[in-house]
């Protein structure tokens, strides 16, 4: 027998076997852990990627709506805001001499009332100087603009079209300021909030702690003033509703009623996070706003993410210029683009 060869072919010892098994188990455990971590990481990356993609899509949708107003008023003219009194109704600027370009230096833009009070006969007969039925077109333009645009397109549209230095008040032929344009009470057809008579005001003072909005879901807001604070009645800074019997026209009301949700990914897989995009348009606290609020909610964990931003965008006047009536006519008849 060649014992040398025999000894070289001997089997593994128990120690070697144990070591081998241990190493094998360690390799397997490592491999399992690696695969598990890899799987989790991939899942996380994929989830983040989907969330990012959704967030990106939501942001783009928000910016797109801020620019196009498509969800608020579809270009095919099928939306409710094309009705009379709504901001996308057709409007003839040639009627009653409104057709000048509304440049701020135009003589018609000189306001000719008494700034101290809404009572335009208290300190003199101011309607003698200018009024809604004045024979001079430049002196009736103010009243026509406020009354006709407010009635025909709504209050948000009025603040959008009127020159930035507009005083929102006018007199009828008898020297009376219509209730619509003074602090006369609650409800529809009141451009002013119901406070004390502090006289005719510009956009700055009118929208301090108040404002106007556009809504497709609640078109009736077109001729309403939202008021956040009662500056003169309950005390400056007091958060109140403008109408105790109807709290819709307050601080929360403008938030709810100006919301225009966008349909984003309606056919998404059920396990994808649910994105909601809401675009709001309003004029409040001295300026026009277009805001985008995005919520992304995970259906698995319930986690909510939120992104809010405001942005520059197309004005209502620009949005109307993008559109035509179903017959192909422009919405602003006789009004040149600036």
């Amino acid at each position, binding site marked *: 027998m060649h014992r040398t060869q025999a000894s070289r072919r001997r089997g593994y010892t128990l120690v070697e076997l144990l070591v081998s098994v241990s190493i094998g188990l360690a390799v397997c455990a490592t491999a399992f852990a690696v695969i598990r971590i890899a799987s989790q990481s991939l899942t996380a990356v994929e989830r983040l990627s989907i969330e990012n993609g959704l967030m990106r899509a939501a942001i783009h949708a928000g910016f797109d709506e801020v620019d196009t107003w498509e969800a608020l008023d579809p270009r095919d003219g099928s939306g409710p805001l094309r009705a009379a009194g709504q901001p996308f109704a057709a409007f003839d600027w040639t009627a009653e001499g409104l057709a000048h370009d509304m440049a701020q230096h135009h003589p018609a833009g000189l306001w000719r009332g008494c700034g101290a009070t809404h009572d335009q006969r208290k300190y003199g007969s101011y309607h003698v100087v200018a009024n809604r039925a004045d024979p001079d077109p430049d002196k009736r333009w103010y009243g026509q603009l406020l009354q006709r645009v407010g009635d025909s397109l709504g209050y948000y549209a009025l603040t959008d079209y009127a020159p930035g230095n507009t005083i929102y008040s006018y007199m009828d032929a008898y020297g009376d300021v219509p209730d619509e344009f003074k602090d006369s009470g609650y409800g529809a057809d009141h451009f002013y909030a119901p406070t004390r008579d502090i006289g005719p005001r510009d956009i700055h003072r009118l929208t301090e702690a108040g404002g106007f909005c556009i809504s497709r879901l609640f078109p009736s807001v077109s001729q309403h003033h939202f008021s956040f604070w009662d500056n003169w009645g309950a005390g400056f*800074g007091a958060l109140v509703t403008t109408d105790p019997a109807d709290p819709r026209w307050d601080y929360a009301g403008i938030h709810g009623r100006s919301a225009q949700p966008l349909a984003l990914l309606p056919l998404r897989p059920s396990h994808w996070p649910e994105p909601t995009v809401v675009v709001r348009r309003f004029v409040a606290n001295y300026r026009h706003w277009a805001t985008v609020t995005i919520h992304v909610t995970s259906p698995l964990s319930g986690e909510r993410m939120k992104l809010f931003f405001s942005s520059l965008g197309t004005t209502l006047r620009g949005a109307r210029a993008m559109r035509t009536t179903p017959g192909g006519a422009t919405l602003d008849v006789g009004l040149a683009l600036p």
Partner: protein
Amino acid sequence: MMDSTRSFGHGGDTNVPRMPAQGRRATTLFEVAVSLLVLAIAVTAALAIFPVGIRAQQQARFQLYAGTMATQMIDAWTQSDHSFWRQQIESERLAQNTFVNAPVDFERMLDHSGMGMLPLPGALARRLDSDGDEIARHLGEGGSLSYPTPLPAEIGMDSGYHNTGVGSVGDVPPETQKLVFAVLGYAQQNALPSHPCLGWPYQDFVPSPPQPWEVASWDLNAWPGATELHAIVDAAPGGVGVSGENLHLLVDGVDPAGDRAVADAYLLAARALAQAVLPGDLSATIDGPIPAMPPPFPSPPWLASDSAVFPPPAKILALSYLANATLLATSARLDPPTGAPLPDAYVRAVVDAALAWSDRYAATDPYDFGAPRPLNRQTCHDFPLLQFDLFPGGRQNPMGMLAAATPPAPVGRFPPLPAPSALIADAPYGDATYGTGDVGWRVIGERQPTSYGRARGEYGWLGSADNRAGTIPDNHAALDASWGVSARFNLCRPFAAAERMRELVCWSVEWRAWEDAETLPPDAPDSTRHFIDSRGAAVSSEYRGLHPEAALFWNEARGARWSEVTDGTPVEWPDYDDVANERRWAYDTPEYRRQWMGWYGVDRDGDGELDRGPLPASARMRATLVSRFVFYDRRVIAGSRN
């Protein structure tokens, strides 16, 4: 069959000894260890890749957030003329006016929650590392970091307005708070909102009765017709006693029997003033004098002496008074006129002329500070371009270089201020021996303004007349001394685009993970946010700049915010009502300090709960660069739309 005794490399020589034992032996343990090491390195490398992927996705998320936040900031900044920044205030002397609660500058406005940003405390910012130590260098140069507010202005309310956070929905703490922002690059010298001692432009409706500040300007500038003007405003026996402060008494039925007589006297006096100021422009008619309308503009260039292009302010004021008196004669609240009423055409002609001249005056010369700008139609020319003269010789020390030898005994931290009903002469700023050492810069425009009078503001401004600290003393001489060298005015000079470029830089870092992220008090706000001078006297604004984080300050128990506590609040919102009327005393009380200086920390994530992060304050964190936005840093107040 292959010969098992042959093998490659041996040429088939069967005599070569075989070496099977060594060639087939098992792998050694060392070799296995090396193999495992190689495997471990490969696995580790593979594992390291996965976080990179996650970080890349997180970075992509932050870049989305940074882009939208930058959009929002620029949106607010480009509409800053449609915000309530409380920029137009005035004080007696240059150095008194801090003036810049919310200046034109983008970087300074980041310190205002109206932009959706709040200042990150320096103690937290200094714990951040960044590539190239960019954050540390920025802080070292006096910069600061800002973080997104948890209460964004979602309903259009400027959340900086009263700093209440009103207008925010705040339903979910924004993930954007993982971002911090800074503005890098050299700041511009921006235009002033107005002269620090004269909140010009003053504005009024045309027609209007004489206002006290207009009478003061008239006298200070020695315009013609002063005697006739005083015949209007002075009380009997010398004059009619009509002014913007008491005209309502005529028509409110206080003395119905005498109303018509006073109104008629006012009309006669106003006609006399117009005759004194613009005799050549009046046409006599049976109903009274009618002012001529402005002629068409001549071809440029326009001479400064051409009064048809640049009408004198006295003419504008006289026409406004004449139109007011004419209209008042037609008031339905007065007794019927004894004679024939004024014809509508006459009234209309007088008022038309007053409006037309006022409109021309406001449009042609922004540097004439004599007559108010007509609110009937505000124009861009209403606001003159002014800037500080930062060049040698531009400094001024209007408050006294040295402290008084015997300074007034302080009340709290401040020198004594006049009692609520005291006259201004009793105030320390009326004491020539009292100096503060405050230094201001002189003011320059494209040319030095003319026809200015004096400030009309009041120290403290808000409250009943008895509670106000008093009208700002006549500061006409201080205005005279305030002008620098107009040749150094550069707001209208051509510039290279690169001169205006700055960077908005965004980093991501979870700073809320520090244990003291919500217990750390805020940094002391810049004193320029407060409209008080170095003695604690309020200059002419009702507003005291609260800290931008004030709405989120914890109360003593750190269980609620002061701003949400309705009962038991030591000091109510200090801008209004009773507290405002007693503002000089409210400043320096323990109650005020503990409530409105953030002693107990800040609810910086806005969730209403005190959060303590896992990281000790001694730990440092690395901020990862997310985005850089280059923007044009304008120097003037401007807006992007109506």
